[in-house]
């Protein structure tokens, strides 16, 4: 029997409760104010005093208000129907709520009770199964949604029966399993899981190595991320974190996309609500919304639920990963999550760490990133969660606790640079400071030489060297003046500008340029590197800039044209002609 209690203290959304029984850390409880029930989570216990963080405003709460403990931690409900849904941070279905305003204590069921799903059995009577085993599948927005043995089941079971192919609701019994003691247990299409615990039901978690195509050139070509990889995007406000994340979630070659809008603007979520039902997945041609789930806990929604939102999103990601799918999870912005932790830690009067963040912030962040990864499931099939978070460093200064802790946890670093954003060089990822650790994995090298070619990585390294040199040369020109350096220096600088304008920069708002498939990236890299290998001759430095501006313009027109269309080839011809003017 779960415990009961009474409110004895209130400091903003931190409430002290006196409980009459055993309480678990992170247990959920409900505080009654009149006929409202406010959800809260236990975050500390001292003697009889239980400290809970309330997921809502505590306005009007009084000492003596009654509290019911739920006997479990914060859980999500997993089952078919999650895709296309818009949830808040606690997995309430936002579309089911009535009225224009959110009502305190209004909790809605995340799935659709009455909806029928077409079921196909995958297991049969007599099979031995365990937590996570696939019993059958239903078609959820054209994804094979596996109905699994609930993750909380322990030990092995024998399948007694599985429902026949047909159409069922989420609460129908899909299978009966017999445990080692000979007792029968029923399995429906849904199960629950506590969000703060990782789902670790898989055989092993090898190092990830397969390129995850995002269609963003400065990622795929320069600093690629992999299926099951981790990355983060720090940047001052307005430098393009959200635009970049939205772009990746539209274009990436993933089966499922989970977006956690964590403490950011509501209008940005509205943009997704408006666009995703219309836009097509470039890989399948289906509507983007069909493969997407949005967890919206925007900045004006309760702060404690903001903290929960990233865990809710991660647990949903793990659920789909265990179906053998490639999941891409995005969180914008993980700094807001860290700030939610900071607010609570300050209220608890814990000893503060740097910038008043909790001392264990690095551990919390790295545990979270560790939930991503590429796994081999117990049935041998692969599944993955690729996770990319944004970071909003205070004052744009990367030497702050959230950026530094994240840098230790994530393998790809995409640093957005204020000056690039100011110069409208989007995406503003600094090509020199940013990195992808996956480039160092021999597994990746092997994979990429097969997927693209075996000279690819050398070419990319050379390209990075040219960018670096271009930067050095431009600094020298700034100091010595245009005519203080040889014409050769100008050519070197402009070659790096060609790489910047044609490969790095990409117009997220142009239908064609926004997404570049990997074969097209290969084609353009070859084109640009050929050009960089050529020798040019000019009378004076004054000719160099205008000439290369023409070259860049033509190459950009190629980027804006349908790949290998007549238009594309016309510009390519034009480029050939321009090159023949100055190449020696």
């Amino acid at each position, binding site marked *: 029997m779960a415990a009961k209690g009474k409110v*004895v*203290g*209130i*400091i*903003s959304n931190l409430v*002290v409760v006196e409980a009459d029984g055993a309480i678990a850390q992170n247990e959920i409880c409900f505080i009654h104010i009149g006929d409202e029930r406010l959800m809260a989570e236990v975050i500390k216990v001292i003697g009889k005093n239980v400290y809970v963080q309330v997921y809502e*405003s*505590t*306005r*009007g*709460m*009084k*000492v003596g208000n009654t509290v019911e403990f739920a006997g479990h931690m914060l859980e999500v409900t997993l089952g078919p129907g999650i895709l296309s849904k*818009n949830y808040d941070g606690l997995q309430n279905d*936002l*579309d089911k*709520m009535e*009225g*224009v*305003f*959110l*009502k*305190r204590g209004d909790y809605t069921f995340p799935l659709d009770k009455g909806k029928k799903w077409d079921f196909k059995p995958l297991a049969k009577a007599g099979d031995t199964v365990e937590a996570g085993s696939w019993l059958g599948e239903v078609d959820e927005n054209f994804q094979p949604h596996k109905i699994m043995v609930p993750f909380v089941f322990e030990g092995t079971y024998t399948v007694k029966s599985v429902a026949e192919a047909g159409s069922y609701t989420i609460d129908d019994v899909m299978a009966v399993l017999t445990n080692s003691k000979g007792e029968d247990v029923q399995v429906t299409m849904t199960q629950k899981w506590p969000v703060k615990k990782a789902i670790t039901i898989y055989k092993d978690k090898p190092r990830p190595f397969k390129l995850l195509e995002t269609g963003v050139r400065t990622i795929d070509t320069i600093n690629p991320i992999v299926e099951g990889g981790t990355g983060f995007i720090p940047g*001052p*406000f*307005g430098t393009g974190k959200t635009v970049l994340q939205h772009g990746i979630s539209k274009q990436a070659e993933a089966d499922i996309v989970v977006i956690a809008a964590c*403490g950011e*603007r*509501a*209008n940005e*979520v*509205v*943009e997704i*609500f*408006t666009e995703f039902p219309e836009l097509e997945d470039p890989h399948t041609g289906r509507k983007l919304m069909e493969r997407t789930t949005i967890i*919206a806990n*925007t*900045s*004006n*929604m309760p*702060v404690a639920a903001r903290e929960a939102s990233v865990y809710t999103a991660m647990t949903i990601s793990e659920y789909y990963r265990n179906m053998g799918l490639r999941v891409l999870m995005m969180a914008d912005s993980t700094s807001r999550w860290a*700030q939610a932790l*900071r*607010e609570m830690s*300050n209220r608890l009067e814990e000893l*503060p760490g740097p*910038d*008043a963040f909790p001392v264990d912030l690095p551990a919390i962040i790295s545990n979270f990133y560790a939930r991503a990864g590429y796994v081999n499931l117990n049935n041998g099939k692969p599944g993955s969660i690729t996770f990319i978070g944004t970071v*909003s460093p*205070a*004052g*744009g*200064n990367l030497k702050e606790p959230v950026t530094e802790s994240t840098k230790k946890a994530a393998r790809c670093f995409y640093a957005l640079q204020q000056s690039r954003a*100011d*110069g*409208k060089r989007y995406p503003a990822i600094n090509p020199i400071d940013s990195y992808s650790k996956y480039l160092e994995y021999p597994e990746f090298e092997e994979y990429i030489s097969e997927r693209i070619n075996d000279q690819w990585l050398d070419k990319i390294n050379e390209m990075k060297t040219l960018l670096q040199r271009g930067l050095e040369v431009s600094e020298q020109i700034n100091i010595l*003046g*245009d005519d203080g350096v040889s014409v050769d220096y100008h050519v070197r600088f402009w070659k790096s500008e060609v790489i910047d304008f044609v490969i790095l920069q990409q117009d997220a*708002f142009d239908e064609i340029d926004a997404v570049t498939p990997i074969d097209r990236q290969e084609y353009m890299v070859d084109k640009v590197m050929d050009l960089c290998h050529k020798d040019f001759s000019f009378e004076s430095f004054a000719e160099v800039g205008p000439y290369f501006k023409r070259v860049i*313009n033509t190459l950009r027109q190629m980027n804006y044209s349908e790949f290998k269309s007549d238009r594309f080839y016309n510009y390519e011809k034009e480029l050939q002609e321009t090159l023949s003017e100055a190449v020696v």
Partner: protein
Amino acid sequence: MATKAFQKIFTKITQITKATVSLHAEDVGYGELATIQGQLAQVVKIIGNEVTLQVFGGTEGIPTNAEVVFLGGAPTLKVSDQLAGRFFNSFGKPIDGGPEIDGVEVEIGGPSVNPVRRKQPSELIATGIAGIDLNNTLVSGQKIPFFADPDQPFNQVMANVALRAKADKIILGGMGLTNDDYLYFKQVFDNAGALDRIISFVNTTENPPVERLLVPDMALTAAEYFAVEKNESVLVLLTDMTLYADALSIVSNRMDQIPSKDSMPGSLYSDLAKIYEKAVQLPDGGSITIIAVTTLSGGDITHAIPDNTGYITEGQLFLRSDSDVGKVIVDPFRSLSRLKQLVIGKKTRADHPQIMNAAIRLYADAANARTKMENGFDLSNYDERSLAFAKDYSSEILAIDVNVGTNEMLDETWKLLGKHFKKEEVGIREELVKEYWP
């Protein structure tokens, strides 16, 4: 904020700090208002029967036997059409000598709009100021601050914007306004014959600073009444949000909270977001647009107040004085309206996006030429021309005293390009150059 029947009255104060008073009391709700010898205060902490109140006017002169009256609820505002044309203080009390408002009493700082019920903003707001309409177009439902040094005429610009925007209601939330600025707003609105569209909640420098913490919520509660109940388009002006944030830090300091960057409370982001996120395009046509002022110190936008603001708002309008032309301009580099994509070239002429970008690019060339000049290098003919262009562009387009329609801004920009550049130098699509080149 009316008082209710069955008030609970206590007289045993156990602790007094600069900003707070604690006492033993029962049956008190979190966030409830109280008066202490007539001064308003709000419950900020309850532990057992010890209740701590934040006293808005400061605790000077409060004795331990002061009479504390609990009012039974959070701060409220009476809303009705009678609000129109009136001036109130931070507590929603009339300060214009007029009668009290009859209306429905609602708690201020109410719930958020469900994100799935919001509509995507799509209505352009024209201000006549080309630095805004051309380069940083505003959209109804947007939230955007002016970033300006304290000596810049941001209140004048904001008053102009408010009067020219075709809003059904304009709500002024004044925080730490000097009495002169308060009278300025009053006079400008009066002269424009717009008083019946205006509602003001004002905390002047003569009032205690902590009181201003109520101003944004008062203004936005009134805004929600007109936007939600009456489907009106409401423009909310909040000046100066830096002074609002300063008041937050005063309170948190006095309550011994651990400060984060720049002695601001760790919750600054959430506190500001709760205000700015009230900007909304509602499904039934009403909207709330927020234009705020965030004063900077020495142009430093990395300070916690502008920094957190930038992470919340949908862009910023940066005012700067341009000594070359002797005018205050809307800086085209550091300003940004993130929602402009939703309207430019769609609700405005098709050449808008291209001509806007081209002109800013050429203006940037001028900035490079200037650096060259300052470093003592020779200028090319192109450099000379771009500098001449920059001067014209600054005074004819970017200056805040410009007041023309959007088409005229576009035409004027074409004219300036034609005057200083060759067609092939402007990098605009062929078809557009054919149609508009002067």
